[in-house]
């Protein structure tokens, strides 16, 4: 009798750098959008940054208020939706919500009929209330949250082809949750000295983190390359480094105003009908293919 083939668990990729302003959120949002389209894979993006900028990039405020009311944010993963305030949580574990009850579908591809799904891009919106976990000192309370998050990610790995986690730029409890759940880390760096320091800090943090049984594989992406007058000195040093060089994607992202936060546009920059959005989409597509190969998803 043929053995029933077990579904391979999806890779979990945290987008992380200890330095802020390197493009973590921008890359999380736009790369996952093109990744899903280019590779036709099911992708879930988890906004684990209490600043929830990724969520604000994609959803209008009114829509987000509805998600909050319905418990469709990452807070429902960290604690069961009982009476809690911004300053406290509870020790009871509670049932984890079903994936389908809390994730929000933002894009989908179908063939023929609408019920013939090919791939979908789902997002688990972020929540400002997550910041309370970084302020708590009671280990039992935050352990409960950490266990719930780990279980949730394991469930997501069975459902999706790729799970992305947008992280905050610090060594907080939330970063630890993301690291423990991750098989890969996508580390955006800008070709400047400060960004490289962030890369080293991340390395030190991971190497000294004893609770991490298996270290996630790093993938580095260069972001914010100037289109004119670019000095590649830092990039050349990064690429020739024996550890960082072989894991730095060849496809880089250029500086573009399209990816900057726009107060009058909510959504993916590659969906905008403006100049350069096609070329940005095409570059993100090339990057997605290279990333898929690096993740073993080709």
């Amino acid at each position, binding site marked *: 009798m043929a053995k029933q083939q077990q579904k391979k668990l999806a890779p979990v990729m945290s987008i992380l750098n200890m330095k802020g302003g390197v493009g973590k959120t921008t890359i999380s949002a736009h790369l996952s959008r093109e990744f899903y389209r280019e590779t036709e894979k099911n992708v879930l993006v988890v906004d684990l940054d209490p600043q929830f900028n990724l969520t604000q990039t994609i959803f209008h405020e009114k829509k987000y208020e509805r998600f909050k009311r319905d418990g469709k944010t990452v807070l429902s993963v960290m604690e069961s939706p009982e009476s809690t305030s911004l300053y406290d949580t509870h020790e009871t574990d509670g049932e984890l919500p079903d994936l389908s009850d809390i994730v929000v579908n933002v894009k989908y591809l179908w063939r023929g009929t609408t019920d013939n799904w090919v791939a979908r891009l789902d997002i688990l919106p972020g929540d400002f209330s997550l910041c309370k976990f970084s302020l708590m000192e009671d280990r039992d309370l935050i352990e409960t949250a950490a266990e719930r998050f780990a279980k949730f990610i394991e469930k997501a790995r069975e459902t999706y082809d790729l799970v992305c986690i947008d992280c905050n730029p610090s060594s907080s409890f939330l970063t630890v949750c993301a690291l423990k759940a991750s098989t890969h880390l996508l580390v955006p760096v800008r070709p400047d*000295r400060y960004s*490289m*320091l962030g*890369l*080293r800090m991340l390395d*030190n943090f991971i190497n000294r983190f004893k609770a991490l049984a298996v270290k996630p594989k790093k993938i580095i992406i260069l972001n914010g390359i100037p*289109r*004119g*007058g*670019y000095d*590649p*000195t*830092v990039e*050349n*040093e*990064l*690429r*020739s*480094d024996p*550890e*960082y*060089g*072989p*894991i*730095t*994607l*060849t*496809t*880089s992202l250029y500086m573009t105003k399209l990816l900057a936060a726009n107060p009058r546009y909510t959504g993916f920059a590659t969906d905008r009908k403006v100049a350069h959005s096609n070329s940005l989409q*095409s570059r993100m597509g*090339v990057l997605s293919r*290279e990333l898929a*190969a*690096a993740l073993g998803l080709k």
Partner: protein
Amino acid sequence: MKNPDINDLLIILVSAGWAKRDIVSVLMQVSKLSSFDLEDELSEISYRLGEVRRYSRIKESHSRPLFSPSAKKIASDDYSDLYLKVRDMLVLELGLSNEQIVSLLSEKLGGDAYLPPLSKKSLANWLERLSVYYSPSEILHAAAVIRERFNKGRPLDWGVRGES
């Protein structure tokens, strides 16, 4: 663009990575120069380039004209980032020939692994075929190490790795 000379000049500037705004600004300034001043500037540039060639590692036989029929293609999206970056580091910066690049990259990646031979087509094609056996990141890393070996410059004040 109706005038092919202007078109060629613009291709050179775009290929060199100039921003649109910078190109427009420079062309506006150039249009204000007298032909005498312009000739003077060009003579000065020719002299300085000659000096650079004399003292740099770039051999005349390998130095490529900045504009050639193949450079026209470089402005397009036909080439991968891998090729463009290998070209920048090993062809334009070090002045290596395709054969030298293939030999050095093969040696660096080498071992017993199979490496495709350089066909008559191009270096871009060879790199594409090489990408079947090695990830583009590994190939570019090898190219960066080769560049560093030939081109030892002043170390960065804050290196990528540091002392930690």
